[in-house]
């Protein structure tokens, strides 16, 4: 398989539903915590090293061939709030639809049958990467990058932020993405031998709290 499949998977236009989600940026903008490129960068760095790292490791483990149902339980255990569990499963279901159409594979069919309402998105993405012939590290890269690109795109829409500044933020964080993808891949590849407890469990409590509050907003631009 071709390494270029990673570009297809990581493309922000990959039709898997991500465009309707801000990754916590919408409540952070409303609270004034994201107000310009500098604060967007801080927000993204925090998200990358917490939930981004956990998601990268889950994806890497799935891409390495670990049992996706075991990983799905591990993802639940690392996602304390119901709002974010629901979002992860909804995005997982949408990723599953796109992945099965793009890289058909019995392993994807089996997970879709076992979790018809959706498995956690990073687990599905990792399995999709495996179906595309990509490595665990590739999967970790795609997820780590996505943990930044979602909020950055949302901030452009929410703040009318200069899109060049937002893209520069993504470039500034490239070395951090490298580190998180490597850490995530290293943890993910240990799961087969050592079990799911080796997966990182970093959390961002403020993202959890604001996600739960945001889910109850009557008027909002993004689904999460």
């Amino acid at each position, binding site marked *: 398989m071709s390494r270029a499949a990673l570009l297809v998977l990581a493309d922000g*236009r990959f*039709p*898997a*539903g*991500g*465009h*309707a*989600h*801000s990754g916590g940026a919408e409540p952070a903008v409303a609270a004034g915590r994201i107000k310009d490129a500098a604060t967007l960068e801080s927000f993204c760095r925090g998200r990358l090293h917490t939930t981004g790292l956990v998601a990268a490791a889950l994806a890497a483990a799935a891409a390495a061939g670990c049992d996706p149902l075991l990983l799905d339980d591990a993802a639940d255990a690392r996602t304390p709030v119901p709002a974010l569990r629901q979002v992860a499963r*909804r995005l997982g*279901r*949408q990723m599953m*639809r*796109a992945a*099965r*159409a793009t890289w*058909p594979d019995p392993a994807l*069919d089996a997970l*879709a049958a076992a979790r018809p309402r959706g498995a956690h998105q990073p687990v599905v993405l990792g399995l999709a990467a495996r179906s595309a012939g990509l490595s665990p590290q590739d999967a970790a890269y795609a997820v780590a990058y996505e943990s930044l690109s979602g909020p950055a795109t*949302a901030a452009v*829409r*929410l703040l009318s932020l200069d899109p060049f500044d937002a893209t520069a933020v993504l470039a500034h964080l490239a070395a951090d993405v490298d580190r998180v993808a490597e850490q995530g891949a290293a943890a993910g590849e240990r799961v087969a031998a050592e079990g799911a407890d080796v997966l990182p469990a970093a959390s961002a409590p403020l993202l959890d709290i604001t996600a739960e509050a945001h889910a109850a907003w*009557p*008027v*909002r*631009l*993004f*689904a999460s």
Partner: protein
Amino acid sequence: MHLDHHETFPERHTYSAAAPVRADGRRRALRIGLGGPVGTGKTATVAALCRALRDELSLAVVTNDIYTREDAEFLLREAVLPAERISAVETGACPHTAIRDDISANLEAVEDLEDTVGPLDLILVESGGDNLTATFSKGLVDFQIFVIDVAGGDDIPRKGGPGVTTADLLVINKTDLAPYVGVDLAGMARDAKAQRGELPVAFTALKTENGVRPVSDWVRARLADWTAGPA
């Protein structure tokens, strides 16, 4: 490299508009999209269609509000369908993306409606109010209706754009306002004909008795073709 596929193409599992049959072997519902600029009467058209067709067909509606649940709530308040037959999709500030570029959330809503309240004959997918370039993906709907109104200016059909030019039905609504906004309906019809060739145009005044009739008749004809087609 063989150009002929000896095996059938892998099943896509997207339940896209390309496949008329669901995984369980039943014919899926016909899907019709309604798009058009803000305030032209898309939701009012959906409500009127539901009232006109709900006694003869099993119906459901998917709304794509831009930042609220107002369209879904309007349909609920007007009680045009039971609540379980109306589903609201959130679009992340980009209504055209959700109906064209990344249709996954809408496909999921359609699929869930068929699973929970099906079997359905017809699902109406209403876009959030957008601009003249917004069109539905063929992976999401079988036919699309583009709704404009006379109050938006009688030059809209002349300006064209993908919605006006290619929609399966162009609805020009609020014709009852034409005298008050100085609009020449015959001129709009001529311009629409020039842009659309043989594709149909319906003039409506939803405030009048049976005002949605030209649209509901068109929908019935599409449904008759759909039901007669290969399953």
